């Protein structure tokens, strides 16, 4: 099979199409993506409380093709999706988090039970509660519901109703550390959007402006929430809290 000069050029052009497109689409380029999700009553985790936690949809795309496919999925549902480029360190951290799987979730639930003072002298009861929450939380990934789990457990333990009989819709996000500190989370913008869309009146976020830069790059959760407050001017009140105690003091002060 012989090709003349013109045919050779045409063939080279035709072969260049899949080659160039493959390079563009398959080139490794990691980005995390976030989209709004839902707010879920803490009662769904078997806790007798009246607050809500927020979950969002998200994940990591490894190349442009995956990004396009994710975008198409959300466009089809007429929903917004936000992408953020990831550094190599973040990709490694994400891989580790993937490997560790539910370890973080187990840790924050365990911490929430401890710091909320739930059945403090009854170890069996604590173990039962832990197993029950982990069982019901199987469908949720991540550790960002730690703060709200702890608040819900305080409500269950003390009989307090922070929603004041349904007058307020209280939601929030943040991990729960062993000392009662509220830790930073991912996708704060989408969580705020989700909460606003669902009619939340008070939304608790980690007060992490001072410590965020020790661990991560970019804006802290608190700064992102402040920006959101300025640009979107939501109806709900955004409340930064550093610890569980600070959150409880604020919620107890609601009229």
């Amino acid at each position, binding site marked *: *099979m012989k*090709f003349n000069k013109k*045919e050779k050029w*045409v*063939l080279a052009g*035709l*072969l260049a*199409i*899949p*080659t160039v*497109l*493959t390079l563009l*689409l*398959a080139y*490794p380029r990691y980005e995390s993506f976030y989209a709004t999700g839902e707010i879920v009553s803490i009662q769904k985790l078997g806790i007798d409380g009246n607050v809500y936690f927020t979950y969002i949809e998200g994940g990591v795309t*490894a*190349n442009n*093709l995956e990004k396009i496919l994710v975008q198409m999925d959300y466009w089809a549902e007429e929903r917004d999706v936000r992408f953020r480029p990831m550094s190599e360190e973040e990709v490694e951290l994400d891989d580790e988090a993937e490997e560790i799987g539910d370890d973080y979730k187990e840790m924050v639930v365990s911490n929430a039970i401890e710091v909320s003072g739930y059945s403090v002298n009854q170890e069996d009861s604590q173990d039962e509660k832990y197993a029950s929450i982990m069982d019901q939380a199987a469908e949720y990934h991540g550790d960002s519901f730690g703060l709200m789990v702890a608040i819900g457990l305080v409500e269950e333990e003390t009989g307090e109703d922070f929603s004041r009989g349904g007058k307020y819709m209280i939601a929030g996000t943040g991990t729960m550390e062993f000392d009662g500190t509220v830790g930073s989370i991912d996708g704060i913008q989408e969580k705020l959007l989700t909460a606003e869309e669902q009619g939340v009146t008070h939304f608790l976020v980690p007060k992490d402006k001072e410590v965020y830069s020790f661990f991560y790059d970019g804006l802290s959760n608190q700064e992102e929430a402040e920006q959101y407050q300025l640009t979107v001017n939501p109806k709900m009140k955004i409340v930064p809290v550093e610890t569980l105690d600070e959150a409880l003091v604020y919620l107890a002060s609601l009229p």
Partner: protein
Amino acid sequence: MQEKVDAWGKYLFVFLIVGLASSGVSLLFSLVEAWNEPFYMEFVIDLDIAVGIFTSIAAIIATILFLGWIYRVHKEYKEISPDYPVTPGGALCRILIPFYNIVGLWTIYSNMSRFLIQYDTSVKKHGKRLRAFIPYYYFSHMIYSFLNRRLLMEEEYSINLLLLTVGMEVIVSLSYIAMFVAITSGLKAVREHQQQLQLEQEAATAAEEAGAASGEESEAGV
């Protein structure tokens, strides 16, 4: 006309070879995945994704080339013989229209083989060869389409189904090449036959003219 058919055929042949090679590589990667998944996830997956993207885009280009080529092949047959049973547009309809193509895909080539068989032995053998390839081509194409659709629709990932589909992709790529070669060689044989006929006609005309001229000369000599 012939030049265009040949040029499209050459491009198509290169893309069929590329398709065969890339599906062979995909099969190899799938075997690695089945044999040692952690190794595949660590070292092979990115390459496999790239090969998958390349194969898909190359397949789209090959499909366009095939449609253009088969259109031109039919156009040439129609020029050679106005009685040829399938028009170029009809050939495209038989391939592209859903459900109709279940039958159409077979009839395009069966008509072509019948057309070749009616010639003398030098063309007839190509027609017979084409006819013999049709079932392999048709069934491998249909089975591959079915498996591919099932793989895309399957909610749970199955490595067995993937292996079966990629294995079938290699077989179907081979059958495409075999059909391409059969059709091309059939068309070439018809062209040679036509040329032969033309030469014979020219020779006969020349002989007639020469005969007429010598008749005039002898008449003049009387």
